[in-house]
């Protein structure tokens, strides 16, 4: 039958494309969406702000890509880039790992801060990066964030922080824990000065970052379906000895429970932030 023949040709063609995609994936041109399993051409994905065109899954972003998406072209000027990782515990292998990561990620630490313009509105922007030790907060991250906050106070600018973090950085022990107090404390100055702080929670934001500056925004936004919580899901499951329900600790869950103001898709993030800044002028 003709139809059978067409079907066969189609199957053959599909198989060919699939094979081609598979071989391209080997050379790094394609990625598979871990949500809908669709094979995506990397360039297409990046053109779509690293959001799956098929299912809308928001892929994790490097600080470099995020800054490119939020700051007006050519306006970002880094603050605190000279603040580097410290090793207060003299922790075995830590500095070696940091050096390796610097080489691999081409960034110096898990946050990049600076002044910039967002649709022409001047702001201080801090963007965390999950590729660097899971975006964990040690002394360098805490110090850079604090400096960003202080710059916002001094220059009378609104502050925007994009959070992504596994929490306080274990390798720096108590020095990391104290960053929570330091950053939260710095935010009291911004608050007192009557200036706007927008916190944006992205996948995943947990631990000591959730329990400090991430939760202290005047306005707290989140990307869709981001994992946001204090304790990690695995720790909770081990504690209560049961599996967590679908969607637990996701952005939609936090919105439902009253802990975030709004879920914003990546394509609308820049304009939403700019609008909020204008509303506070």
């Amino acid at each position, binding site marked *: 039958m003709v139809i059978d023949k067409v079907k066969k040709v189609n199957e053959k063609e599909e198989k060919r494309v699939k094979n081609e995609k598979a071989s391209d994936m080997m050379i790094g041109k394609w990625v598979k969406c871990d949500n809908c399993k669709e094979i995506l051409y990397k360039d297409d994905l990046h053109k779509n702000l690293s959001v799956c065109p098929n299912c809308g899954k928001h892929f994790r972003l490097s600080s470099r890509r995020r800054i490119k998406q939020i700051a007006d072209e050519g306006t970002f000027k880094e603050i605190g880039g000279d603040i580097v990782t410290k090793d*207060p*515990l003299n*922790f*075995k292998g830590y500095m070696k790992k940091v050096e390796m990561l610097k080489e691999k990620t081409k960034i110096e630490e898990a946050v990049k801060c600076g002044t910039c313009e967002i649709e022409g509105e001047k702001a201080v922007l801090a963007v965390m990066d999950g590729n660097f030790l899971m975006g964990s907060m040690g*002394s360098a991250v*805490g110090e850079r964030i*604090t400096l960003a906050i202080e710059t916002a106070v001094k220059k009378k600018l609104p502050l925007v922080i994009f959070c992504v973090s596994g929490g*306080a950085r*274990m*390798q720096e*022990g*108590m*020095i*990391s*824990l*104290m*960053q*929570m*107090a*330091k950053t*939260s*404390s*710095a*935010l*009291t*100055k911004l*608050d*007192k000065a009557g200036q706007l702080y927008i916190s944006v929670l992205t996948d995943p934001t947990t*631990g*000591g970052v*959730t*329990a*400090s*500056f*991430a*939760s*202290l925004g005047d306005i707290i936004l989140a990307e869709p379906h981001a994992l*946001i*919580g*204090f*304790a990690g899901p695995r*720790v*909770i499951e081990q*504690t*209560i000895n049961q599996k*967590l329900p679908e969607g*637990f*600790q996701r952005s939609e869950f936090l919105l439902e*429970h*009253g*802990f975030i103001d709004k879920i914003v898709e990546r394509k609308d993030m820049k304009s939403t932030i700019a609008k909020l800044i204008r509303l506070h002028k």
Partner: protein
Amino acid sequence: MAKITAWDRVMLARKMDRPKALDYIQGLFDDFIELHGDRNFGDDKAIVGGIATFEGIPVTVIGEQKGKKAKENMERNFGMPNPEGYRKALRLMKQAEKFHRPIITFIDTPGAYPGMGAEERGQGEAIARNLFEMSKLEVPIICIVIGEGSSGGALAIAVGDRIVMLENAVYSILSPEGFASILYKDSSKAKEAAGDMKATAKDLKDFGIIDKIIKEPEGGAQEDLEMVIKELKAYIKKSLKELSTLSKKELVENRYEKFRTMC
């Protein structure tokens, strides 16, 4: 006597018969009246708080409370607060500010409770809010780590003008077991982790994170609580006297600088 290792101190800090927050409250203060509830959700028994007098002066006291017997320890959720516990603490601290009372907090927790309800009610927000608010309270705050001070759950009531640790107390980013399981992928390496974390009173004094170590009798605070109380009393008295000479503005500014420069 053999050298006391960091792990030995962890064990001492966790001893069931080690004095708990309420023992120190009874020993240091008079006229203690416990106050309950966060006015929003409930009363968390893992945190106690109220008003008392210290040498005749009204003060607000707050403590993470573990039980000294298995049953009480369960009722106290092993000293692991839920968000309403931190919010109760904050309510009492704001009240202290309103009535110009110094605040004394006692830290003793394995960490903030990692349960479903705690997440639903915003454990992260509750801790963050306390850090934020404590940084700007216009009354003196003295924080005393009496046992286990673990993670953000401990820090949530430990932003103050003076941070004190008992000699065998441990103040750490996470329990040694948790630390070992994350960094060594093996929770049985907790003993090793306890040392590597540098979380003893002496370590933290060297880091400049705490101001004072209170000596304990051999074998731990339970062996001679009177002795520990006596030393604590003297330290609180001296500190309150020093802090009372500062204006509100100086007090808050000094606290800011303290955390700004310590790490």
